[in-house]
């Protein structure tokens, strides 16, 4: 008898959860990790009762595979099996990447999986008695791989591969965020700055805003307005308002209309509304009860009226002697 398992993604993972029920036809867990069986594959075989196959040593017809375990750093293996629509578990934290990225979808692929991410899908803890027999069936297979830990060279290679994988993933994430967020905002900001500097709007702003932004009472007025509980949730989204005002003030500071010593208090004056639009979502990320959210959100909005202007005063004194 085969059992259904549920596999969730790990903390840095992508995709899933996958629910896998092996059949008489698809009854093999294929492990393509090199250097013996990966603990994740062992656990899968134990829970499902599937036969464990080392993909590096023996081939296995695709139509017999229930699930495949890989340790791919983001080029080939992680895409090959999803392309064939075989459920794929990657023990590395790799998302949609590599030349086959388009096939890596959440319904067929899950990554950064650790042993504790695997559970029987009825939600109960694995019952020891029924799973004992399949576990024993799996063990001999594991034992036939004599160098389960691998020799020194293999272990060194794996460790090095893991570290390089982390660096590579870090680089990939960075380039992603640069292209998706940083560059578009730079384009937007450049357009605004260009128009302000060339068109003469800059002078109007200098006359209108600088008197406010260039004095402590003026900054306090700005911060009180931004922290009004009716306005603050509307000024929050994506910090776009704070960023645009930041750019405007930066231009004025650069042009000499606002003294640089006001930079620090200004950073707080334009931002007392930070995240006010996001509070309910943030609180639900913190797994707060609905009741806590109901009370917490208005409470934060109200305290911002006090702590917003207060932050400007603190920043004003923290900025003394800076420029």
């Amino acid at each position, binding site marked *: 008898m085969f059992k259904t398992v549920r596999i969730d993604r790990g903390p840095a993972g992508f995709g899933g959860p996958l629910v896998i029920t092996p059949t008489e036809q698809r009854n093999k867990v294929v492990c393509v990790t090199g250097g013996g069986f990966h603990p994740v594959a062992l656990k899968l075989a134990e829970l499902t009762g599937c036969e464990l196959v080392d993909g590096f040593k023996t081939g296995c017809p695709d139509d017999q595979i229930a699930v495949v375990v890989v340790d791919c750093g983001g080029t080939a293996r992680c895409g090959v099996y999803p392309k064939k629509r075989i459920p794929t578990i990657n023990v590395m934290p790799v998302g949609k990447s590599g030349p086959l990225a388009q096939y890596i979808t959440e319904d067929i692929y899950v990554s950064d999986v650790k042993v504790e991410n695997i559970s029987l899908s009825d939600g109960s803890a694995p019952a020891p008695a029924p799973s004992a027999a399949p576990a024993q069936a799996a063990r001999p297979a594991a034992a036939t791989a004599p160098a389960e830990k691998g020799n020194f060279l293999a272990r060194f290679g794996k460790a090095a591969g893991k570290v390089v994988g982390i660096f590579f993933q870090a*680089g990939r994430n960075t380039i992603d965020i640069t292209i998706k967020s940083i560059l578009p905002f730079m384009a937007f900001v450049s357009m605004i700055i260009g128009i302000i500097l060339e068109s003469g709007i800059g002078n109007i702003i200098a006359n209108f805003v600088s008197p406010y932004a260039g004095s402590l009472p003026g900054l306090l007025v700005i911060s009180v307005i931004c922290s009004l509980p009716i306005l603050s949730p509307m000024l929050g989204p994506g910090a776009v308002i704070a960023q645009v005002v930041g750019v405007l003030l930066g231009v004025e*500071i650069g042009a000499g209309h606002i003294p640089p010593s006001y930079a620090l208090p200004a950073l707080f004056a334009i931002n007392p509304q*930070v995240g006010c639009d996001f509070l309910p979502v943030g*609180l639900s990320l913190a797994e707060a009860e609905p009741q806590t959210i109901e009370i917490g959100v208005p409470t*934060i909005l109200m305290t911002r009226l*006090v702590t917003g202007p207060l932050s400007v005063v603190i920043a004003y004194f923290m900025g003394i002697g800076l420029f």
Partner: protein
Amino acid sequence: MEVLAHLATGFIALFQKGGSVFTGLVTGIIPTLVVLITAVNSVIGMIGEEKVNKIAQLCTGNIILRYTLFPVIAVFFLTNPICYSFGRFLPEKYKPAFQDASISFVHPITGLFPHANSAELFVWMGISQGITQLGLPLGELAVRYFITGVIVILIRGIVTEKATLYMFKKNGIEV
């Protein structure tokens, strides 16, 4: 005809200026930013989330650490917006205060550690561009922004915590 040509020149000049600003941002900021963010992401990847969770939970008991070190660790390691999930380590009555403290830190951290909120860099960068233009150094401003941020989130945390407890009591909720 001359008027039209004059207008066209002026019109194009708006965007030529913008273009040179864009070139400045891309060549001046992006290379360092990309390498810095990659380095910090690598360090975070090596340390791993589980270890960070363990260390962070040590800071939840003390009221000072709860609204200084705890949100700083959350924002640094988990970055905006996943950092708010650290609230799950706290009892319900502290969650709004932690939310207030952590979300207030997502911009003060960007002066030193842009990886933590790389989609919203221009609160800091907008203003710091002006300082750069004056030929003044940014380092100390970034450090003071960070430190002031920590002081501000401590105050926000404590004020919101007291206010939440008051509101809980007023609504007859057990704390």
